């Protein structure tokens, strides 16, 4: 039996509740949460979908570290497992946090290829070499789970801060050889809520379940943004 201590919130008050779960080898925290929901308390709320670390729905704080519940095995965690919602997000109910703002920030950086020759009637194949793919490949692996955002010290105190995931997405497209939208994105990234709010605490890279290295992406984006603005200043 493993003891689950869960941080619950019902819209008004926040409290801890404990459950005993018979843990099997290979059982994930997500399975344990389903076990609790089915056998003890059907009102327990959490978010999950794919159960295989690909949708990014189930990030939560497990024994103080943000992780994917579906990719964390119970028996690696000891006899007590503490489960809490992510930091830096508003809690809606129990383990479910408000992600609207997070996704808005993601949309704000225009996370899609921008081309001058967009023509949907006559689509054209865009070629890319493996070297060009490698420039940004690791940054495409982000599943928007919010783990990085939950440990970012700038996001902790500034609601409008873009945060690591959105800036990583911005860099991912800027570094894509097929993209022609760098200028637009540098402008968005260079707003006061953007790259300048990063102080390279680098905790985001520590917690990312996909090893995306968001801190590296933000640093690269900031350098490119800074030099592109300085260059345009000097010419003008």
């Amino acid at each position, binding site marked *: 039996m493993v003891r689950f201590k869960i941080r619950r919130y019902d819209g008004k008050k926040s409290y801890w509740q404990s459950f005993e779960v018979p843990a099997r080898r290979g059982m994930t925290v997500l399975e344990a949460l389903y076990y609790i929901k089915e056998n003890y308390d059907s009102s327990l709320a959490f978010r999950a979908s794919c159960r295989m670390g690909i949708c990014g729905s189930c990030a939560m704080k497990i024994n103080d570290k943000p992780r994917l519940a579906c990719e964390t095995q119970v028996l690696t965690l000891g006899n007590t497992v503490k489960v809490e919602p992510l930091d830096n997000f508003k809690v809606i109910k129990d383990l479910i946090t408000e992600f609207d703002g997070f996704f808005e920030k993601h949309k704000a950086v225009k996370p899609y290829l921008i081309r001058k020759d967009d023509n949907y009637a006559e689509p054209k194949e865009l070629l890319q070499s493996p070297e060009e793919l490698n420039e940004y490949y690791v940054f495409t692996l982000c599943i928007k789970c919010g783990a990085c955002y939950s440990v970012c010290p700038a996001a902790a105190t500034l609601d409008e801060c873009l945060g690591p995931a959105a800036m990583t997405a911005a860099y991912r497209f800027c570094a894509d050889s097929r993209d022609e939208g760098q200028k637009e994105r540098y402008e968005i990234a260079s707003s*006061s*809520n953007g790259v300048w709010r990063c102080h390279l605490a680098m905790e985001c890279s520590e917690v990312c379940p996909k090893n995306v290295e968001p801190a590296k992406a933000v640093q690269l984006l900031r350098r490119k943004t800074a030099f592109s603005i*300085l260059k345009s200043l000097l010419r003008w």
Partner: protein
Amino acid sequence: MESTKSVMEPVAWIFQMLTGLVMILLVTLHFYVTHMTSHEALKYAEVASRVAQPEFKALYAALLLVVSFHAFNGLRAILLDTTAGMRKKGAVSALTMLAFLLAFIYGLYLLFSI
């Protein structure tokens, strides 16, 4: 407003880094001069004779410029990291840069009247 914002931030960022690099040298030198050259280095006569030399004057003026900018721009970055500070972004930038100038000018005044 849009354009002043996007010019201020990258310039401030790059100067924060460059002043940091310069200070590694200057602060080490300052500490060396005041603590390791002789036991008398902090006596009034010694200080006065050092500051009278143009080389030292220039050195201190540089240190003063670099450190005041770095410190108050650092404070600006800290304040802008908060929702409250960001709401008054313009005032935060203006006041911290004003404080930087005041510290620099007062230090220069000291440097040239000792």
